[in-house]
């Protein structure tokens, strides 16, 4: 059977079983809305809204962190990247996991000990509040919105494929539906509701991935070498499929891009605001450490299974069929499910529907986490501490956060509708690069460098932010490339798709330069407070 026929079959199969897919989607939505309303009833104080009352156990939070972290980019994107580019796609899995050690060793515990609700709490601790909180809020919202756009666009791709919606109006409607759901989750359920949604999603995602991995391995009698060999052969690229270089090895520039991506992946995680605020949901730093350990275990197991997902798809599905379904391979995982069950059988359809529902749940849970991070930062950093100068009551803050959620939701729907056909991978990599350039240097300097000043913090946040976003704007992600956002114009003078290799060192450099050129003396008393609190947990609540 020719690849084209295969694709048509897959699409028909999907449309025949559309009621099943819709039922599973609806089931997840109803269950999570129920959780949200239940959580909303228990959300009264600011600590409830921002931090879920700080009463989650280390295991629960580890699960929720995993649910917050493993986005559509991980599940659909990595499976697709491995299915198309073989070994090079695996770099994402490794970078996304190793990155957790930065969070574990340097950030999670001090943050839990010295902050309260947002990343800005720690960044602004020793500094002049208003300028630093404005900067922290700005970078939180920029990182979260880029990440949000990628998820929204991913939802559009996935749902339109599965439900056969191809009209522009239909896609906009899907983006709007996702946006409305996330507004409801976050504004009603707060951190508590979001956490439970993320836990449910993590269990579904891990369960679905284990099932697919098991079925793939079963096909190859649990012989990994056999799986890899078949994938290499079926890909048409032979042994090169199992070696680094297919995607990034072509030229010196693309090799540099590979390094840039690698650095952004490993340093980005510990600067992602939606991940950082999760550490406030546990009672103390010890529980924060344990939840990172749980997350490393869960996320590590998941990324190991992406080998089976990606190489399994490459081994069992033709390259033409994967590309015909989605040029970036984003639908390789659902297609694999269909093939494993048998494309003509009910099992195939059920597996496809299940995996698609899991992917949908994945997107919704991540989107909720991102919205919560940005609306918390708006309410706590910008509204309460900049506009109201620290005089707002908890009740006023929560009200501001709920309104911010609605506002950010609407902005994301509008941008998501515009971005529905854009390249999603670029947006996620950008979010990681911005987080590593603007947030991580400031977090590390704040916690560990005695001399660090307000000017240093501002230069490193804005410097990292502007250079990272600016370089992407002039990169092949945005223009001058057939796969770019604007393929018909060319203002791309920066050759790399990922800005990390320049913007991350620049963020660190600006923090250092801003500090040594600073006229004001560092606040040593405040640093004593921050350092002692961050290492001992004195006064943490």
């Amino acid at each position: 059977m020719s690849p084209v026929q295969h694709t048509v079959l897959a699409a028909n199969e999907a449309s025949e079983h559309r009621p099943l897919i819709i039922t599973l989607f609806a089931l997840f939505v109803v269950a999570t809305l129920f959780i949200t309303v239940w959580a909303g009833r228990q959300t009264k104080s600011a600590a409830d809204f921002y931090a879920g009352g700080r009463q989650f156990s280390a295991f629960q939070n580890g699960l929720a962190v995993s649910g917050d972290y493993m986005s559509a980019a991980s599940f659909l994107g990595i499976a697709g990247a491995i299915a198309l580019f073989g070994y090079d796609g695996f770099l994402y899995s490794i970078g996304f996991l190793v990155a957790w050690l930065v969070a574990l060793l340097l950030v999670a515990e001090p943050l839990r000990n010295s902050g309260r609700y947002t990343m800005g709490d720690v960044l602004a601790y020793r500094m002049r509040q208003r300028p630093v909180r404005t900067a922290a809020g700005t970078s939180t919202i920029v990182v979260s919105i880029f990440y949000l756009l990628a998820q929204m666009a991913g939802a559009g791709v996935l749902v339109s494929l599965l439900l056969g919606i191809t009209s522009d109006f239909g896609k906009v409607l899907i983006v709007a539906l996702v946006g409305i759901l996330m507004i409801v989750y976050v504004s009603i359920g707060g951190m508590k509701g979001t956490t439970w949604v993320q836990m449910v999603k993590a269990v579904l995602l891990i369960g679905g991935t284990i099932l697919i991995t098991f079925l793939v391995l079963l096909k190859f009698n649990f012989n990994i070498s056999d799986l890899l060999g078949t994938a290499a052969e079926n890909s048409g690229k032979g042994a090169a499929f199992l070696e680094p270089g297919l995607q990034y090895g072509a030229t010196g520039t693309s090799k540099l891009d590979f390094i840039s991506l690698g650095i952004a992946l490993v340093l980005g995680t510990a600067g992602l605001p939606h991940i950082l605020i999760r550490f406030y949901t546990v009672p103390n730093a010890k529980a924060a450490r344990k939840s990172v350990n749980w997350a490393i275990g869960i996320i590590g197991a998941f990324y190991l299974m992406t080998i089976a997902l990606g190489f399994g798809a490459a081994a069992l599905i033709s390259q033409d069929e994967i590309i015909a379904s989605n040029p970036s391979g984003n639908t390789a995982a659902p297609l694999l499910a269909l093939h494993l069950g048998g494309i003509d059988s009910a099992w195939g359809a059920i597996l496809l529907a299940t995996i698609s529902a899991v992917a949908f749940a994945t997107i919704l849970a991540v989107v909720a986490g991102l919205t919560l991070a940005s609306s918390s930062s708006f309410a706590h950093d910008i509204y309460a501490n900049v506009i109201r100068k620290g005089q707002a009551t908890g009740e006023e803050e929560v009200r501001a956060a709920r309104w911010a959620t609605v506002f950010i939701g609407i902005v994301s729907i509008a941008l998501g509708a515009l971005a529905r056909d854009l390249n999603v991978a670029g947006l996620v990599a950008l979010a990681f690069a911005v987080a590593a350039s603007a947030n991580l240097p400031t977090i590390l300097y704040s916690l560990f460098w005695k001399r660090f000043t307000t000017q240093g913090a501002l230069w490193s946040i804005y410097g990292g932010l502007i250079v990272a976003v600016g370089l992407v704007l002039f990169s092949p992600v945005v223009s001058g490339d057939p796969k770019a956002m604007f393929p018909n114009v060319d203002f791309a003078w920066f050759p790399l798709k990922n800005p990390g290799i320049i913007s991350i060192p620049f963020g660190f450099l600006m923090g250092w330069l801003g500090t040594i050129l600073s006229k004001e003396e560092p606040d040593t008393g405040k640093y004593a407070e921050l350092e002692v609190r961050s290492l001992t947990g004195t006064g943490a609540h």
Partner: protein
Amino acid sequence: MATDAPPPSNTEHRLPSTEEFVEVQNSAEFGELRRSYRSFAFPLTVGFIAWYLLYVLLSNYAGGFMGSKLFGNVNVAFVFGIAQFVTTFLIAWWYSRHAAAKLDPKAEAIKSQMEGRA
């Protein structure tokens, strides 16, 4: 929580004063806690980042070596990738063991002393 004003009064715990924090920061006990944390976490961070970058650089510039087959279709690159997983798990376990044995008791002692005094 820090604001420009003195610590807000609506927090559940009264924080020790800045002077007390400075005093503790300069104390021998805290110095030991800081040393014990930094001398473990900082070199380990440099180590795992170097190990990861080695992997990235070898993938880029040592294709022949990474592509050499070890057994069946499993090559050096694949084993190297899996090794990154294994070292990540091991480092997480090792740091947590160090923290529980060496850092937590010291941190706990300083915290209870400071909060008792406050």
